[in-house]
């Protein structure tokens, strides 16, 4: 203690934690020193800066106690950069340790040396690394193999000059499978960071070696080897067959990531083998995929997202397995939504009854987002399977009769799509019209109004219904206003004698009393059309609509193909190409900086929403809760807010548009949750019922969101709604431009 006290008098404060730690570190008792090191590491973890203790910690490096050594090494790895000069003192110990008779210590030394990112240390690494790469113990060799990758990261020049790469390439033939796996890992990593080195190339010999190691190495090694095999392009059919044959036993592995990696290899190489063989492999891969659904929720999530991709390519792989995807009560929301997605995908006329019963059950639950998605799924099934459409419509009617507000609203949106797909369900319109007063969401109101306009000739009191809406025109949401406008025009064209006054009234409201350019312009367009030649107007407004074939979202083929090569990676979870969410410089400091800036931008982007909401309150106009739904409804093609309400799948794709921005990738299935965030946010200000839309604040949100909704690359595969063609086309055009930019 006395010694430390004197020391303290010279350089450092006498009090405080650092002082105590320092005293402990130089104590004459081994146990005190060890305890002090432990405490130092503890403070380090808590984020305190203990770099000042560097010299004192370093003094403890030469010890026979393996635990203590590990702790000192851990400290060194963290703080080497703060004292690059002092690191030189540790070099000697490292070099000595790398020749220790104990292989554990040799491995520890070489492992740690690679993690000390100081130039001086790197200079001394050459010799120990060379020795350990040829070590008799496979444990040391496998550690050294990875160390080459570390060295390459630090100093590629030196790594190349010393021929470490060649040595690694040779070591793929090592008798020990784990060494092989680590060599492959290291080489693949080097290849990725610096393709010009041609560090890793699969030749027939290496292929053979890897296939041999595959059955013997650890599970993680298997994943590495399998991933490499998946990236490899087989030279001929025979080789592809051989790879499939050797890899398919791995379907039975207990580790889900091995199973997924094996599925990936077989799925990619299957393309080259004969169709019958491919079919048998597809059959073989179904049970393991299903088993993945009973793993831990997070792993399950990854698996489900991947199954979603596989199903888009091979829709009938799992058609017999509907039941496994039934949601459990305790499943986290992200799983439930993803399961719904998959169930709809594998629905066919054999399992549809089962599915509908299940979906109806879900629609009775209380979690609002989930319920909405379930109702939507019923609609998707109806459109997908013609024979089931009647059952679906009946189910939807049952649900409407429950009078649960959000169920009714979603059901109406869905029924509108069914009308577009199948004629002959007009009989249910009266039932729908009964709930007209319950609808407060623009999407649902819009849908109902669209139905009324579209079938005006079959609805006796269509004029009455619409005039009710026209009276409250000023209080409606933008998208509902647009719908009212179109519906009234349709009504007028169908029953000109009864609705002359109504159409005048709505034009008046939409032009003279409205400042929204979208509405005003559309009204003028209609107005002029009607005043020039009603016949032309009829052919435009009442033209045949392009039929809806499917409301299930699928990825564009090119993206799907790309994602299939990324199975089980993050890209496959997000359903985005990796470039979309990863920065360029993987290891550079610039990347970090960029991330920070992006984060800032993200914050700024989020703030206007809150600001806008706040502003709306300040101006005494509580924005209706549901209004925020708009914000998430922006679709790829209909980027103009005016054409929102007709997008059948817009609720989802809107968020995916959001998620597609490189700044922040939210979970794709979580689309409903953010909506509720917004709802909550706005809910704070009270539910303002049919509050006015005149306030500009929510509109500006739309504009902001539009900005990056268009950035999404995920396909613009929905035809623009016919009734919106006029405005839809412009929207699509501008969106096209945005897409072109990418």
């Amino acid at each position, binding site marked *: 203690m006395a010694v430390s006290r004197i020391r303290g008098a010279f350089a450092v404060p006498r009090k405080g934690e650092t002082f105590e730690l320092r005293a402990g570190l130089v104590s004459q008792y081994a146990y005190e020193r060890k305890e002090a090191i432990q405490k130092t590491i*503890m403070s380090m973890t808590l984020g305190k800066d203990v770099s000042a203790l560097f010299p004192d910690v370093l003094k403890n490096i030469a010890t026979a*106690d393996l635990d203590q050594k590990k702790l000192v090494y851990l400290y060194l790895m963290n703080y080497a950069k703060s004292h690059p000069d002092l690191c030189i003192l540790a070099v000697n110990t490292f070099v000595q340790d790398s020749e220790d008779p104990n292989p554990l210590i040799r491995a520890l030394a070489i492992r740690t040396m690679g993690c000390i990112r100081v130039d001086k240390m790197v200079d001394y690494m050459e010799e120990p690394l060379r020795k350990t790469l040829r070590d008799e113990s496979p444990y040391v060799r496998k550690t050294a193999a990875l160390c080459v990758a570390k060295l390459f990261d630090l100093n590629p020049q030196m790594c190349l000059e010393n021929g470490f790469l060649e040595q690694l390439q040779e070591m793929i033939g090592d008798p020990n499978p784990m060494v092989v796996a680590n060599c492959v890992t290291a080489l693949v990593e080097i290849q990725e960071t610096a393709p010009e080195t041609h560090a890793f190339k699969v030749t027939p010999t290496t292929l053979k070696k890897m296939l041999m190691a595959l059955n013997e190495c650890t599970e*993680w090694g298997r994943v590495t080897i399998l991933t490499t095999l998946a990236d490899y392009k087989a030279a001929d059919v025979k080789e592809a067959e051989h790879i499939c044959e050797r890899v398919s036993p791995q379907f039975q592995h207990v580790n889900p990531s091995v199973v997924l990696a094996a599925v990936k290899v077989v799925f990619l190489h299957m393309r080259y083998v004969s169709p019958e063989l491919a079919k048998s492999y597809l059959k073989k891969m179904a049970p393991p995929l299903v088993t993945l659904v009973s793993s831990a929720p997070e792993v399950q999530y990854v698996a489900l997202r991947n199954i979603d991709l596989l199903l888009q390519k091979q829709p009938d792989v799992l058609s017999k397995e509907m039941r496994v995807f039934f949601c459990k009560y305790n499943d986290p929301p*992200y799983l439930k939504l993803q399961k719904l997605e998959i169930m709809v995908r594998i629905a066919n006329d054999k399992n549809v009854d089962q599915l509908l*019963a299940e979906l109806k059950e879900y629609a009775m639950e209380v979690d609002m987002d989930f319920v909405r998605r379930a109702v939507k799924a019923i609609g998707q099934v109806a459109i997908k399977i013609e024979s089931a459409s009647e059952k679906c419509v009946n189910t939807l009617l049952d649900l409407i009769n429950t009078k649960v507000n959000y169920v009714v609203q979603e059901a109406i949106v869905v029924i509108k799509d069914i009308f577009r797909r199948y004629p002959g369900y007009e009989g249910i319109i009266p039932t729908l019209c009964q709930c007209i007063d319950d609808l407060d969401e623009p999407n649902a109101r819009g849908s109902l109004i669209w139905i009324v306009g579209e079938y005006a000739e079959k609805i006796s009191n269509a004029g009455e219904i619409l005039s009710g809406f026209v009276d409250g025109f000023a209080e409606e949401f933008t998208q509902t206003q647009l719908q009212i406008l179109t519906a009234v025009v349709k009504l007028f064209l169908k029953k000109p004698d009864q609705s002359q006054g109504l159409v005048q009234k709505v034009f008046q409201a939409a032009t003279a009393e409205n400042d929204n350019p979208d509405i005003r312009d559309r009204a003028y367009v209609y107005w002029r059309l009607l005043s020039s030649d009603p016949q032309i107007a009829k052919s435009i407004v009442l033209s045949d609509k392009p039929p809806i074939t499917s409301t299930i979202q699928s990825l564009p083929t090119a993206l799907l193909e790309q994602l299939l090569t990324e199975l089980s*990676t993050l890209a496959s979870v997000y359903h985005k190409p990796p470039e979309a969410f990863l920065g360029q410089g993987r290891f550079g400091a610039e990347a970090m900086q960029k991330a920070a800036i992006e984060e800032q931008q993200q914050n700024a982007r989020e703030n206007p929403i809150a600001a806008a909401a706040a502003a709306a309150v300040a101006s005494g106009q509580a924005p209706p809760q549901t209004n925020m739904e708009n914000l998430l409804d922006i679709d790829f093609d209909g980027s103009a807010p005016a054409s929102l309400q007709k997008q059948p799948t817009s609720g989802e794709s809107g968020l995916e548009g959001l998620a597609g921005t490189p700044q922040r990738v939210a979970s794709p299935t979580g689309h409903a949750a953010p909506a509720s965030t917004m709802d909550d946010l706005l809910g704070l200000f009270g539910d303002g019922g049919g509050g006015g839309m005149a306030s500009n604040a929510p509109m500006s949100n739309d504009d902001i969101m539009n900005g990056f909704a268009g950035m999404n690359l995920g396909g613009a595969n929905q035809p623009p709604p016919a009734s919106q063609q006029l405005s839809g086309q412009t929207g699509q055009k501008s969106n096209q431009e945005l897409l072109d930019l990418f």
Partner: protein
Amino acid sequence: MLSGILIFNQKGENLIFRAFRNDCRPRLADVFRIQVISNSQVRSPILTLGSTTFSHVKHENIYLVAITKSNANAALVFEFLYRFVGLGKAYFGKFDEEAVKNNFVLVYELLDEILDFGYPQNTETDTLKMYITTEGVKSERAMEDSSKITMQATGALSWRRADIKYRKNEAFVDVIEDVNLLMSAAGTVLRADVNGQIVMRAYLSGTPECKFGLNDRLTLGEDNLQPSGNRAGAKATRAAAGSVTLEDCQFHQCVKLGKFDTDRIISFIPPDGEFELMRYRATENVNLPFKVHAIVNEIGKTKVEYSIAVRANYGSKLFATNVVVRIPTPLNTARITERTSQGKAKYEPEHNNIVWKIPRFTGQSEYVLSAEASLTSMTNQKAWSRPPLNLSFSLLMFTSSGLLVRYLKVFEKSNYSSVKWVRYMTRAGNYEIR
């Protein structure tokens, strides 16, 4: 691959911060805390901000977070995190905040060993326990051992030491099945399947080669339906005799997958001690041990009436133990009155359910519970989500799938004889009635 592993407690304090790559900065801990822990609306286990991806798993009261910067293998990341949890449990009994705090040195040591440069290495608990211990290995003493240890940690038989000797060679096989059931309120079975595992405890000398046979169609081959050896075994369980179709099975890494694929033989050199030999899944002909008939009536807004009947569907000589029926009640339940024909029922307000415990449930019998919950009125009436009824039990000498162990053969150089024991058990997995 992985740039770093972080552990947080529920308050968001960083307990462990281990960076494996240069790009894992301490600042990221704050980012995670702000974006995930203090954000109540977390909806996905994966979050990407900028080019950094946080993948997290919650276990007990800690968050385990993996940080990746590249397009990492997400399945591997999560599986690794779960494996890490498993390791923690094996080392500390319970892997929670307290365990991490008390053993943080060991946690660092483990991380150092199982991950190198962000790539997972050996995560076998048994192997790791040999050289990462709570006492600490002194380097001089352990030198000889070390070389053996390292051989094992990387060898083709990473799971077995070479020099194991037992006086009595024994092997215990436990067939444990978890039955999952989802039954609709109307009593139709929506989904019934079995997740089985075969756990083996091997106390065998040397390096024994084992061959294992089951009565599943996979190993028997489609045509060979009624092998004679099956009869004797059929007595052991009350399940349907004959062969069983396993949807899928997975094996411990000691099983030679290649051999299974070609010859349908489960052949392996077992690790010493307890391990999970295989896992399987069966969906056909699932024998449900219990039938539950539940009537739940909401009478007005103030009362809910329950009438639950549980019937045991297995032979009268068997009996299930620890049968617990959890009957959910509305959140605003004020009082419960209940009557049971067997066992004890108790209302647990903190979990919002009635817990009905029947310690011993003999086969073919039927027990009934009737209860009435009176509700208090609430200011905002929210619909009751009606969670499913849940059953848990364990039943010996019964397999829901009808699976039987046909044989276990042990071959070893010294040709010793060994004793094998087989035990069957069926438990409730997710046994739910809506």
